[in-house]
């Protein structure tokens, strides 16, 4: 029997979960384009969201291709470089980036503009995987501390922008990384305790007025006065109206009143989910939820078959990052979480968000495809660092 071609190997390794992830990603991109089209249809100023998003998605294809077909060692070897680059960019944006809507988040080169925090998210995933992957490494307290520091640095920079939401998004990645890589329970408990204390201090002391206001508004969301609904509670209230009035089947494409009448702020970015729920109802919302869930679930299931600790950790981190971002976005839109400005992965219109997300998914799939599958009994044995595809060092 001829040896299985690489394509078949890949297909076999990725299997159903991989396919599910890829298809879900694709469908979500399509949904994002539909959303942009809907917003375009209801804006009378001729905004070309759909077109631009389409262009970006197309531009993402070669990037994904590159990431997918690059040698797996490349990713691992360059994790540090990517991380350093992202930290530098984060620092840079604080000084050089223009202030938009009260925050400095973007760097522009010519007409090209992107958010370093997007890059940082994936960089952190890779870095954590690199630091913590492997049982022995994970059990090392110093490594754990290093991992925490490596997350705190970009997080602090992001908070300075200020973008508390994205910064907090790094926390689940850290938690997942620690869990999955096999840190000691003691370390985990210590970390949890420290995190709780840190959070408490943050809430009491560190939060800006408007951030405290946001939490307060969110907590009291059912008892807001009318003027509050026009001020602090504006986004959440309008979002809930959009979602709630969608009902079971929704109003139909480009027919949602909140969308049509420009009554929902940020409806092509942060509140894209609200528009979808308004126009496609409960059905549409559940579909998006399922699709967004497919990605982390698929990736995690995929990772369970992998022997290589780095790959496993990296994939789970990426899965957690994407999944939590989706959950938080949908939670914010429905009022389950206090308002933060997080985009819905792949669906929201956004400069670099979709591209980076696709690239990270490509990286995850690549890692999954090239990592040697674990035999059932061997799965999760003591830390294996080498992968079968590693060429023997010369």
């Amino acid at each position: 029997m001829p040896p299985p071609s690489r394509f078949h190997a890949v297909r076999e390794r990725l299997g159903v979960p991989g396919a599910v992830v890829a298809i879900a990603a694709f469908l979500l991109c399509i949904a994002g384009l539909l959303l942009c089209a809907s917003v375009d249809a209801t804006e009378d100023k001729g905004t070309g969201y759909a077109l631009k998003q389409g262009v970006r998605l197309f531009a993402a294809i070669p990037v994904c291709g590159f990431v997918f077909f690059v040698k797996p060692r490349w990713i691992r070897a360059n994790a540090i470089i990517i991380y350093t680059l992202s930290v530098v960019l984060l620092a840079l944006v604080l000084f050089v980036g223009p202030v938009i809507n009260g925050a400095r988040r973007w760097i522009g080169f010519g007409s090209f503009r992107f958010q370093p925090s997007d890059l940082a998210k994936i960089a952190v995933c890779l870095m954590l995987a690199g630091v913590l992957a492997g049982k022995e490494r994970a059990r090392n307290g110093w490594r754990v501390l290093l991992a925490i520091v490596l997350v705190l640095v970009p997080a602090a920079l992001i908070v300075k922008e200020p973008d508390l939401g994205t910064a907090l998004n790094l926390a689940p990645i850290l938690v997942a990384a620690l869990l999955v890589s096999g840190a000691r329970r003691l370390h985990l408990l210590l970390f949890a305790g420290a995190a709780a204390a840190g959070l408490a201090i943050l809430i009491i002391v560190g939060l800006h007025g408007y951030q405290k206001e946001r939490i307060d508004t969110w907590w009291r969301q059912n008892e807001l006065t009318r003027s509050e609904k026009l001020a602090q509670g504006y986004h959440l209230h309008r979002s809930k109206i959009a979602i709630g009035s969608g009902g079971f089947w929704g109003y139909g494409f480009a027919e949602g009143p909140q969308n049509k009448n420009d009554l929902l702020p940020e409806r092509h970015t942060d509140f894209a989910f609200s528009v979808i729920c308004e126009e496609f109802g409960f059905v549409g919302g559940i579909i998006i939820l399922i699709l967004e869930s497919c990605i982390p679930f698929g990736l995690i299931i995929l990772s369970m078959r992998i022997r290589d600790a780095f790959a496993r950790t990296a994939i789970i981190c990426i899965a957690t990052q994407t999944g939590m971002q989706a959950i938080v976005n949908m939670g914010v839109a429905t009022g389950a979480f206090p308002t933060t400005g997080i985009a819905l992965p792949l669906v929201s219109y956004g400069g670099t968000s979709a591209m980076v997300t696709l690239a990270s998914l490509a990286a995850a799939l690549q890692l999954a495809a090239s990592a040697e599958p674990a035999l059932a009994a061997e799965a999760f044995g003591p830390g294996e660092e080498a992968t079968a595809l590693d060429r023997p060092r010369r």
Partner: protein
Amino acid sequence: MERARIIFIIAAFAAFAILIVLRLGYLQIASTDEWRAEAERLTERQRSIPYFRGAILDRKGTEIAVDEATYALDFEYRSFHLKNPIAQALQVESIAGASPSGGVELPTLVKIARDAAGSQFAISNITPGQIAEAEPAAERDALRGGLEKLLNLDALENRAARARFRDAIRARSRTRLAELLPGPCSGISGKISKSAELLDKLDERLKRPAGETLAAVERVRNEIIADVEAGLSKNYESGNIDNIDNVSAERAHRRRKRESWLERLADDVGYPAAELVIFREDEFPGFSVAETTARRYPRSLLPWVVGTLRKPSAEEIQHFREADARLDELARQLDRTEEQEREYAQLQQYVVRHAYEPGEVVGAEGVERAYDAELRGERGRIYEKTSKRGAGFERPETLPPINGKNVTLTIDVELQKTAQDLLAGGVPALPGVQVRGSFAVIDVRTGDVLALAAVPDFTRDDLKDKEKYARLRDIDNDKSNPAHPLHHRGYRPWLPPTPGSSFKIVTALAALEHELITPETMHRCDGRIGMLHCDNVHNEVNLHEAIEESCNCYFGWLGERLGLEALEDAATRFGFSQKTGFDSLEVKGGFGIKTADVDMLRRCGVGYQIDCTPLQVARSYAAIANGGKLMKLRVVNAVGGAPAPVEQIGDINIKPEWLKLIRDSLRDVVAGAHGTARLSGLADLGVAGKTGTAEVDPRNDLNHAWFCGYAPYTNPKVAFAVYIERVKLHGKDVTPLVRALLESKAMAPYLREN
């Protein structure tokens, strides 16, 4: 173990996903109806339909004050801003400040906004808040430079639009609009030229030929400047991130302001101006026309009866605001108790139908004020769904307005005019002299005021014209000038006259009552008693003759014997010293002395030392005429078709035989052989009455000349009192006025036998 941990992560995700599903279920299935209602509230516009305030009609239904449908011009900043490239340019220019430099590279912010929006409408996407958050100075300069560039190198569209805009308004529409707007709105043309100057300056800076623009641009611009400067100073002093704490609240506040920035430019523009704005709306961006009503006064008469209107006071509006706030509170509660549900429905009705809207009016004086509640109607409501463009369609549930009730006065406009003209025309005895006085005509049985003329009088036109009114006020307040035009001599004279001999019936009845005399008692008249004197020597007279010949000696003797208290008592019973209830401003009059010596008492008996108004005198004669009933004087005949009540407020308590005696005596004044008015010709008209000549300035021989009475004497219908102030006349000289009035066409229906 790791597997367990991975399972844990999966479980965590699943839990979150379930949370989202539950939340979606709650919002979209469980409470979707409430959210739909909330969504509809946002896209729902309620337009109120104005009601017509009740008309004020005269006795026969002639309109004196009536509401007419008209149009009002409103200006909405938001749509002006969105549609008008010049407004946008002005906005950015004012934000960027005046800097002489130009031709700079497009600044980052503009560029970014442009990219994001992808069109030259980017400028309109920049909010004041964004600009406020821009780096000061350098960015502002660059922004301004960018604006120049934008306008200079711009795509055809903007330039063409600008040129089109200009051409369309140049001279033609602007003047046309200014022409079409009525007088008080002509301030708009002032605003237009002011903003034209501004735009000229802008053009100059941008090196364009001179142009013009529309009304209110200047004010809008100033508000933008103020708004942004407030934002600039508050939010961006040092660039410290902490300063943006207020950003969201500030932004929301501005959003609220922007969305609701609707201002009424002109209250009452005619159809031509409205048509101009409606059919050429692209030339008038931001302008809109609202249907409204305005009060018209087809008859300029009787402003002091009909009254005036004013805008509601802050307290009155506050009252409705509180109701509105409570309504909002109840509306927020998704579950209301039954009681709250009822309160909610009530409040909704109250606020929607009754609350004061901008431009609404409230009665300030007169009947407009006294009957304000009945004159006001209830607004209607049209419920519309709107899209961004503001188009709407009507939902089946339109609440129709309820117009106010009409108020019918008792005054007959024709009769009033006749009486007024007669007074103004003077008396034959003093040809060519402009007299001052008043003429009151009332209905004997019901107390209706049929006419209340006075000279000098003022009309509503006098009130509307500020200069005229100021002049009238000056004359009125001038103590040396006896005119006092704003003090209507009918019910609130500046110097209330004394009734003179018309008062003698009171003295007569008081004397009879106190049994000082009998109808047969004779008294000798020598031509004078104390300081008083008669015109003639009357020799021996009884009461009947004393009235007929108006003997001062007789009544002076009676007054002396009655004493002040009795006289006061009798006077009050006849309605003197009491307000007639005609108007809140009227004077009471009454006896002006407290203790009296003999001379004073004599004078009192003859009708001196007591102040009165013609209405009071007329009322007293009406009491004689109707058999002793003192009626409450009415100005309002009916409200909304329902007749107003007729009230009797007193009784003069007079024995029938005395009443007959007095009435016969009054008849003989005009009909008898010695009557003081026997030559007046009033006997043929069935009049019974009394002349009065009150000496006010004996040295100059100036009197108040009165004639009061009723007609027809067999079955009295109307009572009247007329006096002329400070003239060299006697009461009998006034009778031609009475005769002319009673013979007039306007009076005929009132004298006809039923």
